[in-house]
């Protein structure tokens, strides 16, 4: 278990470093940071001045190592736009996005789990067909569209939920539904396929031959096996959600990380963009690590390997 953890940690650090280096390259190659800093009207001398003060005239690798060293000590630089420190800026946006991510993945799992199990045990019956059709429809719906439909229903017609902005828990209901609705189909499919496969295994036949109740067979014997890949996928999706959903935060005007990312890109606020990419990468790797740990806890074959 410890060896597994150690191995995964090293992997995580390596992936984080590689991703941040690639972003660094992209950012420096796609635009002139000095112009972004000084504005289009800046003179040649002013730009040169900016380059020297910000160290932009050094080789890229040196610049990256400099940035990475600072980043590791928690200094992610300052926003070109608001001149605030980047780290507190992002941290201030994180709670909104994190709440949204937790609620969305919750909605997705709450939909996928019972439907996936039901579809698998009633394979080929109407409930199976219904579940799969619903999944197909929801996957085909872009999340901004389901978001707008929700706004129309609850916000405009019924007027029970706030349409936009961030006030209280009620502000999260519609965005979470829209995002959860979006992540649920793939979770459902994976769970259904896993359950169908598991229900046909020899050990399920053994469990039936023992006279166990159907409930026990499904929840204890089948689900424990079928849920393993679903956990990995859910963790990855959760990581994506934590990086902020640009579209949904825009539709509902939620001040989350996604919104910040969108605004920063528009303003060519490179330090912020760079930091958000790094954050997303770290979260992504952490979530994968978490999924592996959960799987390790649930699957003895991994745990003792």
């Amino acid at each position, binding site marked *: 278990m410890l*060896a597994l953890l*150690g*191995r995964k940690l*090293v992997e995580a650090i390596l992936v984080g470093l590689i991703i941040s280096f690639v972003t660094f390259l992209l950012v420096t190659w796609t635009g002139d940071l000095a112009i972004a800093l000084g504005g289009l009207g800046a003179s040649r001398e002013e730009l040169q001045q900016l380059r020297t003060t910000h160290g932009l005239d050094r080789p890229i690798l040196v610049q990256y190592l400099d940035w990475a060293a600072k980043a590791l000590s928690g200094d992610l630089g300052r926003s070109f736009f608001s001149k605030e420190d980047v780290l507190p800026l992002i941290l201030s946006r994180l709670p909104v996005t994190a709440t949204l991510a937790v609620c969305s993945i919750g909605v997705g799992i709450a939909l996928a789990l019972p439907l996936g199990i039901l579809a698998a045990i009633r394979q080929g019956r109407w409930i199976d067909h219904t579940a799969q059709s619903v999944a197909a429809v929801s996957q085909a719906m872009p999340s901004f569209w389901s978001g707008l439909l929700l706004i129309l229903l609850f916000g405009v017609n019924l007027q029970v939920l706030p349409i936009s902005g961030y006030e209280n828990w009620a502000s999260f209901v519609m965005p979470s539904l829209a995002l959860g609705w979006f992540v649920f189909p793939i979770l459902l499919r994976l769970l259904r396929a896993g359950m169908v496969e598991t229900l046909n*295994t*020899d*050990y399920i*036949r*053994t*469990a*039936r*031959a*023992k*006279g*166990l*109740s159907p409930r*026990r067979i499904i929840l*204890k*014997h089948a689900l*424990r*096996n079928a849920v393993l890949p679903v956990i990995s996928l859910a963790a990855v999706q959760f990581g994506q959600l934590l990086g902020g959903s640009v579209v949904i935060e825009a539709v509902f005007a939620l001040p989350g990380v996604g919104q910040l990312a969108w605004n920063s890109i528009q303003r060519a606020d490179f330090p912020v963009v760079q930091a958000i990419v790094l954050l997303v990468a770290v979260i992504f790797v952490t979530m994968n690590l978490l999924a592996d740990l959960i799987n390790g806890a*649930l*699957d*003895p*074959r991994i745990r*003792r390997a």
Partner: protein
Amino acid sequence: MPVLDVADLRVDLRTTAGVLRAVRGISFSIERGETFALVGESGSGKSMTALALLDLMPRNGRRQAERIVLDSRDLIRLDEDELRTVRGGTAAMIFQEPMTALNPVLSIGDQMTEGLLEHRPGTALGEARRRAVDLLTRCGVAEPERRLPQYPHELSGGLRQRVMIASALMTGPKLLIADEPTTALDVTVQAQILDLLRELQRAFDLAILFITHDLSLVRRFAHRIGVMYAGEIVESGVAEAVITAPSHPYTRRLIACAPDLAAKRGHRLGFLTGLPPRLLGVLDGCQFRFRCPVVQAACAGAIPQQRTATGVEYRCVQDPQGTAGQGVPERAAASSPHSVGESLLQARDVSVSYRLRGGLFDRSATIQAVRGASLTLARGEVLGLVGESGSGKSTLARVILGLEVPDEGSVTLAGTSMRAVDRRARARAVQPVFQDPYSSLNPRHTVGAIVRAPLDILGLHQPKDRARVVEQMLDRCGLPRHLFASYPAQLSGGQRQRVAIARALVSGPSLVVCDEPTSALDVSIQSQILNLLQDLQRDLGLTYLFISHNLAVVRHLADRVAVMYRGEIVESGDADQVFERPEHAYTQALLASAGRREASG
């Protein structure tokens, strides 16, 4: 009163091709302390019978019966909830694959106790665990307390089957249904498990329903035998009588088909032509009539009535006398010792080790699969290589085929080192036949194209002659002509193996490496393939390296034998000598297990 009394059990399966009559009206009963064995080839309905008793068939299955009385309760009249109290309660089941029959993510202790806790809700967990430890001890599991928190993947196959058996006995059942419980195990382990079952039967006065495809296995293990064919019990009776004096033509053929450990090499196996019928729709008459060597006009009428002969009951329109002598081979035995020429293959001190993949922090472990193995093969000879799983016999075969480069040692073929020749030259000289032809035949090519491919690749014969050469080879391998344009998926297992053999031989190799070529086949099909291999070897003067875990098959075919154990060749020599006067302790144990398996009392 019998523990189990089954009358007129029928199982229908709904399939896309129609209703499949998997079990067609069978009746039998088992007393306390008695073992009744249902013997049959795949598709005979034996496993479906076992599942149907407790209504555990696949979802497309429906059962019907006059009665299935277990311990004075008629199971056919119970609803699902009542049936659940019987499953794992009065009747317990164990299955073939100990590797997959236990849930990989639940601990042994959990899986052993959960049944008891379900059936006797008041039971304390501590008490259940004590019973589990007690039963594990009785089932010969060392350190039983340590097993409870372990998981299935941490146990060997034999140990898992012991755990399965112990687990089945937790509720004190009166009937144990064992579906091929030893088939997936090595010979030595098989014998131990049978001994254990017999011991437990005595201790608990168990009635055992034993399902198997292996007639020789149940000769002494079962008290009575029922032979199933096409969903019916065609013959039943006292075990010894069914095996020594069978009355039904099918039983006779089945016995003649099985290679015998006690018989000398060179004799020819009996065989059954054709395949079992597809049991769709309305079925009339004797279903064996399509393969029966003594079929008559009357056989197509009604289903034959049950008749009684000494010690057995059977369903056939004829007297045993009228059909006697039908186990006898139709072609003369290949008794003349074939000429053995100069040395063809020499493997010297071959060692192969594998590195287990390790992660960043794991020290990588190595497994020594073959250690310093040497063997020689003379032209025209059959060398049998026997060993249990993990003995390294298949790895050694891969080295000889040039699929694996040994760490040490050398392989020379007809005087030239294998390393010196290129792949094409090697392919011309050595060809493999594997256990599972399905995975080695290209599913997208027709039979004709598959067999032709080696000729095209190696540039043998004039292109215009190739089709004819392919046809001749397929004829020789006994594949019906109308199948030449079919795809592998449309063939039966035996037919696919014929194609694999034709493909191996079409390029005219001098050495054929057969790796468990009949292990996936039914006895009657196995005998067809073994006879074919024997004929080809004699007619074409081939040399075989014949690898198998099945001692009787090797005994039947091999001139010389090499025994592998833990990567080493521990004994080799003339087949008669090794089988009759084994010198190494392992060979002795192996033969004793195989013999005990067949002749245990």
